[in-house]
């Protein structure tokens, strides 16, 4: 943080005009936003909007064509201990001999060579983290046997035990039922406020995050707008981002982003299209 400019002081993440091309296609164009410690930020966009690519840039796994990423005022690098990452899902056989506590323990030192020696301090640290994500009840069960919501909590503990200041979560709610999703969101919100860890969570549906999000980064067609939810999720702002008219509808406290106009596709003659006059984007 010593090298940070006055402007970036206090910001844990600063993404500045980042552009990425993959296979000749522009995936991200001039994406800019910043996150401060303890902020809960939703990265919202439909599938293919570039959410995962943006995460890979922040993690240092994908070089941007242009622009810069600063983490706590420093240029991004691989193996940055300030960043914790939770992937969308993982493939692990139910028989695989890896308990919840083993996976959380790997969060401390998986990048080191050799075998981790068991110690009382290590065990206490793992237990404490299991407690924090409410995973004590399945600490000794095989990870491959856990439900989707339980696995997400274990992955969050795996990321948090390295004491990061920014937590990136890639679509953690995508495969969860409503209740497990609520539990995960509540847990993350608690982590953000109590431990001042900034959270950047990607989702194609912003609704489960509406009550807890401090800010939103909305991605569409490779471009992004960011700000408070009320500033960003508006008909005018999102229409400009998409490059065509969309409507933002609020129904019973839920937000729907709807594209297309009635009658536009009514005369295609294709019976499967007669009902796709509107498309609910998000």
């Amino acid at each position: 943080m010593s090298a940070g400019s006055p402007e970036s002081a206090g910001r844990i993440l600063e993404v500045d005009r980042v552009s990425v091309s993959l296979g000749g296609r522009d995936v991200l164009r001039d994406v800019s936003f910043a996150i401060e410690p303890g902020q809960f930020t939703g990265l919202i966009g439909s599938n293919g909007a570039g959410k995962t690519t943006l995460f890979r840039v922040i993690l240092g796994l994908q070089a941007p064509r242009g622009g810069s990423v600063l983490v706590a005022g420093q240029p991004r690098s691989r193996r940055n201990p300030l960043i914790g990452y939770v992937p969308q899902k993982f493939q692990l056989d139910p028989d695989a001999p890896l308990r919840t506590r083993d996976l959380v323990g790997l969060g401390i030192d998986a990048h080191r060579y050799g075998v981790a020696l068991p110690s009382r301090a290590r065990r206490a640290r793992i237990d404490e983290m299991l407690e924090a994500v409410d995973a004590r009840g399945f600490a000794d069960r095989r990870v491959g046997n856990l439900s989707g919501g339980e696995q997400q909590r274990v992955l969050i503990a795996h990321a948090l035990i390295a004491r990061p200041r920014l937590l990136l979560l890639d679509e953690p709610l995508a495969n969860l039922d409503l209740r497990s999703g609520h539990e995960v969101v509540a847990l993350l919100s608690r982590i953000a406020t109590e431990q001042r860890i900034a959270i950047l969570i990607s989702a194609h549906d912003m609704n489960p995050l509406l009550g807890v999000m401090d800010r939103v980064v909305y991605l569409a067609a490779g471009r992004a707008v960011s700000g408070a939810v009320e500033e960003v999720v508006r008909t005018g702002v999102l229409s400009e981002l998409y490059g065509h008219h969309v409507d933002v509808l609020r129904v019973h406290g839920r937000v729907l982003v709807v594209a297309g106009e009635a009658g536009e596709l009514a005369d295609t003659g294709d019976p499967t299209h007669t009902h796709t006059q509107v498309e609910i984007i998000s």
Partner: protein
Amino acid sequence: MSSALAAIFAPGFFGSSQVQIAATVGAIVAVVAGTVGVFTVIRGQSFAGEALGDIGTTGGSAAFLVAVGPLWGFAAVAIAAAAVMEMIGIQRPRGRDVATGVVLGAGLGLAALLLYLEAVYRNTTGATFTIVFGSPFTITSSSIPLVVAFSVIVLSLTVVLFRPLLLCSVSPELAAARGIAVRLVGAGYLLALAVAVALAAFTIGTILSTALLVGPAATALRLTRSPGRAIAAAALIGVGSIWLGILMAYDSYDWPPLGHGWPVSFFVVSLIFVAYLLAGLPRRRRRTSPTAATETDELALAPARS
């Protein structure tokens, strides 16, 4: 009592130097195979292990033809094959099967030629059987140093790679995000696998080498929940199967056809198979300590759990 013991341990069993060498080499190799095998099963690379063993036939038959130790042949060809698999994409799940199949086909074709030449020029038809199905009693004490050296290499590599390899096996994405060189770790593991398979092929034959690699590991996975314990259990099951197999093969000299022992590999592989089946039997509920009680409750709620 002594007659019962004599029925189990045929006279001369403990005094036989062939038995001693076979039991020593077999135990070392079983520990190596069990250790590597746990990762093979977690990573779903059993087919790669099978292919590296099968293709060892080529190396073994070449070694016979030029009269060097077969272990050198097994190891050289398995390492070369592993390198080719790595280069043409074994790390990608979809590329894996195709790459493995192509390399395996080419290797076994060459093995067919070498074994044919062997039979024609040296008139040693037993070579094929020894290479493919193994013959621990023909191992000489001079090969023990090489077995130990190879084993130390494999075990050191596995211990060094242990944590990154475990995380790569769970989620390559997660490992990459931690700054782990996923591909390098995978290649290091493939090298360990190739040498472990060569050792197993040397002991119980190329075709059966996978049984020693994957069998005890798969059984251990059914019995244990943590990686360290799974490795210990796999090693124990492997050593037990080898020793018991050697004993039964020694005893089988008294079975028909009299004076000809049955192949050790048959017994070893059968014992591994039986252990695997036994481990799959439904287990009784654990006794109730407070933590075990919560676990059985969760068990009852989740019928899909094995």
